[in-house]
């Protein structure tokens, strides 16, 4: 039985081309980039070239790209440092943000450093931009953190619109773009965003590396101290092969972006149609409209039945890997904070299917067939 992996929002398989490049670095280019001898200079060049690659793809300057250990560190750095260094006392976020954002803001709230407001969400789970404006107008200079695409339900925000609103009220705008980096084109010469983040392992790159984009108008101090790495912004010997892999993964993602977007959106639409046609009472969490929804994520809501809790387990027995929500909280028994926030009925079972370029229509057929079996037998 071939295993079917539909949990690409949790992590993705590395692209072979990416690994080849990393392997070469691991074997032959092992120096410390801060060393001034040739072993060091060689890897320093590699890192700076990777930075240039990333910057060019995002249409920005290499001086604005800072490599980190991943998305969580990048989010923490943006939030903690901006709020602290700018003396911000009010932050706005939403109830469906990733825990790397929500928990970080909650800690600051608990310490009494900020007042935290949650922007309203409409019935589909979209940010109410009028409410956002009200919150911005009625408070001091705010820090806004709203993710580009939600990792559980796939809802997209309009980065341009939110950026414009934030600019109007002189707010600092951070967007967790971990799920959309390499899946959409981010043109940073146009977007009015101060911070965006990347975790390479979500785009067929390696785990343990990511970056934070910091707009040149924003000046923050480091979060991790010690050493002059990343132009004094992030202490610690650079994860050279990780950085090499990140840049290559992003390069490949951009080269194949349109093709993959069409292909993966096709898989998602096909699965949606098949589920609607075959399983009575099926529903979906979040918006399905491709203009407002991440094409890699489909959150399916199954009719209430005894099978509910067992669905993921049964899928797994059949060699199908999906998830109930974010991997980062899948160990806890607490229900998804995202589904709770959008008012999804708790008696229905939610399964997140998330796709990538390696998935096929045949796999979708097998999954739908299996789901039919599992749900219909029990009803």
């Amino acid at each position, binding site marked *: 039985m071939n*295993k079917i*992996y539909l*949990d690409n929002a949790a*992590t993705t398989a*590395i692209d*072979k081309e990416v*690994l080849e490049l*990393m*392997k070469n670095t*691991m074997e032959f280019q*092992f*120096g*410390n980039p*801060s*060393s*001034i*001898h*040739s*072993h*060091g200079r060689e890897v320093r060049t590699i890192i700076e070239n990777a930075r240039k690659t990333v910057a060019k793809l995002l249409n920005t300057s290499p001086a604005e790209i800072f490599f980190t*250990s991943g*998305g*969580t*560190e990048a989010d*923490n750095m943006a939030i903690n440092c901006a709020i602290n260094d700018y003396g911000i006392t009010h932050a706005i976020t939403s109830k469906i943000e990733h*825990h*790397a954002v929500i*928990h*970080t803001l*909650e800690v600051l709230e608990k310490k009494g450093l900020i007042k935290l407001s949650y922007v309203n969400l409409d019935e589909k789970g979209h940010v109410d931009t009028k409410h956002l404006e009200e919150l911005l107008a009625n408070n001091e200079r705010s820090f806004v953190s709203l993710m580009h695409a939600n990792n559980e339900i796939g809802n997209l925000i309009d980065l341009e619109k939110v950026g414009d609103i934030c600019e109007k009220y002189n707010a600092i705008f951070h967007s967790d773009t971990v799920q959309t980096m390499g899946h959409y084109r981010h043109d940073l010469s146009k977007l009015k965003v101060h911070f965006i983040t990347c*975790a390479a*392992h979500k785009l067929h790159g*390696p*785990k*343990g*590396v990511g970056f934070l984009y910091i707009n040149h108008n924003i000046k923050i101090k480091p979060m*991790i*101290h*010690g*050493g*002059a*790495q990343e132009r004094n912004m992030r*202490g*610690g*010997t*650079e*994860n*050279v*092969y*990780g950085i090499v892999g990140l840049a290559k993964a992003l390069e490949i993602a951009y080269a194949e972006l349109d093709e993959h977007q069409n292909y993966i959106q096709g898989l998602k639409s096909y699965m949606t149609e098949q589920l609607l046609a075959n399983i009575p009472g099926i529903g979906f969490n979040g918006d399905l409209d491709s203009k407002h929804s991440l094409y890699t994520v489909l959150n399916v809501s199954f009719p209430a039945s005894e099978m509910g809790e067992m669905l993921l387990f049964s899928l*797994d027995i059949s060699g199908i*890997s*999906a*998830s*109930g929500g974010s*991997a*980062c*909280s*899948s*160990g806890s028994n607490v229900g998804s904070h995202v589904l709770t926030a959008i008012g999804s009925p708790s008696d229905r079972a939610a399964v997140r299917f998330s796709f990538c370029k390696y998935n096929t229509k045949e796999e979708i057929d097998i999954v739908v067939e299996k789901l039919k079996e599992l749900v219909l037998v029990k009803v």
Partner: protein
Amino acid sequence: MVKLPIYLDNNATTPMDPRVLEAMLPYFTEKFGNAASRNHPFGWVAEEAVDYAREQIAKLIGCTEKEVIITSGATESNNLAIKGVFEMYAQKGNHIITLTTEHKAVLDTCHHIEKQGAEVTYLDVQADGMVDLAKLEAAITPKTILISIMYGNNEIGVVQEVKKISDIARKHGVLFHTDATQSVGKIPVNVETDGIDLMSFSGHKMYGPKGVGALYVRRKNPRVKVTAQMDGGGHERGMRSGTLNVPGIVGFGKACEIAMLDMEKDSIRLSALRDKLEGALSQMEESYVNGNKEHRLPHTTNISFKYVEGEGLMMAMKDLAVSSGSACTSASLEPSYVLKSLGLNDDLAHSSIRFGLGRFTTEEEVDYAIECTRNAVNKLREMSPLWEMFKDGIDMDSVEWAEH
């Protein structure tokens, strides 16, 4: 014939052991799951691999798996230890004791928390790099919450009397953190017998991958807690969030396992090679070995060649990859603050070279390095007016240089 340039900068970073890379590869490809995915085998396989690596790491330092917090490297570990203790034990006090010879990751972190109300004592070391234990004990106040003293120094290789330091910390109910980045995997380090409460170390200094490290956090006698510095999914028992770098962790685990097997063999071989190198070079006129030679890492020596300028010397021996201080500060042309702490003047600190041997260093390479260094030093001295004055018997320290 030796392959040039010869890498003798293993304190900056080490090449990855091929056995480590081999262990990592499957976790990039078919076993690529997110270790936090609990609903399918991709996740379980990744989690099992992390658990196994955690055991390998724990075994090397004599702790339990639950006491190992995985980080992105030793710098993050040092940040987490110091800031984490400072926040968690704020009720108890705000005073921290450390050394002037610590790595920047410790010093910069301490400087940072000073701005947040911490009081930090930076103790000077003795001329041989060892901490004066009486001075250390005398520095403890009722407000002291942490002593952070490195295990083995990255520039001079001096190994502190860790057990004696921890005894003092215990006696006064103060936590003891040690930056053991240069020591773990090179010399026996055991958190139980050494009495360590928190310990930072990393993969790439012990033939493992870059971008992964760990913080040991004691769970018993006493139970130590640190405030998380990165929040999110609650990974690493809430102390460090972020998707686990599975291949990196697997590689780190394997590097620890290999270190356990090879440590004795490696250290005997390397200390013999180091002694050969040091013996030959210290026979040269006006050359001085820096730091205590008894309490020292087996693979490190730091030598000052008087009347020669370190950067120039490095340029003159291009066939050797060595450094004149720590890699993390080597971009600056300031003389090493570690050597200055030992009481060396700027000139002598400037004229020092750190040789860091490693698992893959051969005797042939060491022989070549001796020749190369000798020639370079002699050549530079021939061109140096200071050397000429010295040879003419002028007492250089009595010369008063005119301002210009």
